[in-house]
């Protein structure tokens, strides 16, 4: 079986270095799913009351709490916009990705 590494995509050559089932051998963090995004949520920290409802609702766990503020990780945010819908202060605007 291929060696496990954290950040790199593991290349499998053939049957002999595959696990028996479809399974990622390392972490999936190399797969930057943020590239799938059509809509970009942007937090206006002037309006944000740090209630962390967006953090709680993000289905992909890509809103992190940094220095007491919610911060969107655009490497993995797919732009589902649930955060913007749930924000009680309309502090998250939605922009079109070019």
């Amino acid at each position: 079986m291929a060696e496990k590494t954290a950040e790199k995509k593991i290349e499998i050559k053939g049957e002999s270095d595959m696990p028996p089932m479809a399974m990622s051998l390392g972490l999936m963090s190399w797969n930057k799913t943020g590239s799938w995004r059509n809509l970009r949520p942007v937090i206006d920290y002037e309006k944000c009351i740090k209630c962390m409802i967006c953090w709680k609702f993000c289905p992909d766990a890509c809103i992190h709490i940094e220095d007491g503020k919610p911060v969107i990780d655009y490497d993995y945010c797919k732009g589902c916009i649930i955060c913007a819908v749930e924000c009680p202060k309309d502090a998250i605007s939605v922009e079109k990705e070019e």
Partner: protein
Amino acid sequence: MKKVIMGNHALSYGAQLARTQVIAAYPITPQTEVVGFLSELCADGKLDAKFIKVESEHSAMAAAIGASAVGARTFTATSAQGLALMHEMLHWAVGARLPVVLGNINRAMGPPWTIWTDQNDSLSQRDTGLMQYYCESNQEVLDTVIQAYKVSEHEEILLPAMIVLDAFVLSHTSEVVDMPDQELVDKYLPPRKATYRVDPREPHAFGNLTAPDRYFELRYKIERSMRQAEGLIREAGEEFGRMFGRHYGMIETHRVEDAETIVVATATIAGTARTVIDELREKGEKYGLVRIRVLRPFPFDEIRQTLAGAKKVIVIDRNISFGHSGIFFQEVKSAMYNQSQRPPIFGYIAGLGGRDVTPDVIKEIIGDAAGKEQPIADINWIGLKP
């Protein structure tokens, strides 16, 4: 210690002795007692397992898949329409390589609504990739649960297994069963060691989207494990024999050495055929019996070696593939076709929907084949009321 138990409880005791850790099931006649008794054993603290009640068989197998994926030894049981409802999840358990053991009580498919036995429910799942064991006695049912875990959980195998027994003829019939000693069973079947499992401390994605450049190889691996399982089933059966005094293999033969005509049968019909063959032997007629115990993986070597020398082969099917013929008949014929020694093979359909297959029915079949040089039809219906 010997106990008089029904076939359904033989499955339950087997799961208890195997120290099953998770049971997920939905009741259906004639399987109900299997899980009813297991739920009692869990409630009374006699089995340290999590019993998950679900709202359907699809969910039963889904829950079993989840439990097996984290490394637990997992059991479920069902019948007929319930097994059909599990179908999608059976493919999942195989592809995810999860060694779940499933007891299936062979019940005919409806409509018309029926609860009696035939094999079309389990045979409809033939190509999912579950190993299939067809049992003849309650003792074999209990012993096979223990052996099935040993084979399924082997690191080179990792495939689920189905243990099949006839509705009512076994499921609700009490027989004397020698209960294996728990300490010996623990030696034979140590706790499961799952190399690949869902563990939050070491995250992996399972069942990911797999493109054509990988899927093909994963299917090859399943087939290779199936073929390896053939040897391991034999080994597991022999080791079981050394420890518990009862030997098991892929097939079981009876008086085949000099037999001119060999009857191939499965499950309880094989038991009836054995007594008929003994009767005929007393009259000097050279009949023998092959009971197919394991259908998947198919016992190619044993079937070819045993049947090659016969002048005639008779296959009795308690099932039908509509538009073709009996399914065991097809399996046996296809195993023999490329062989240099190919006896004529006669296929008979009997006992559908639980109609009794008595010694007289077997004699009728044997008599019909004896009167023919070559098989004329692919299907011969026995006991059809005109």
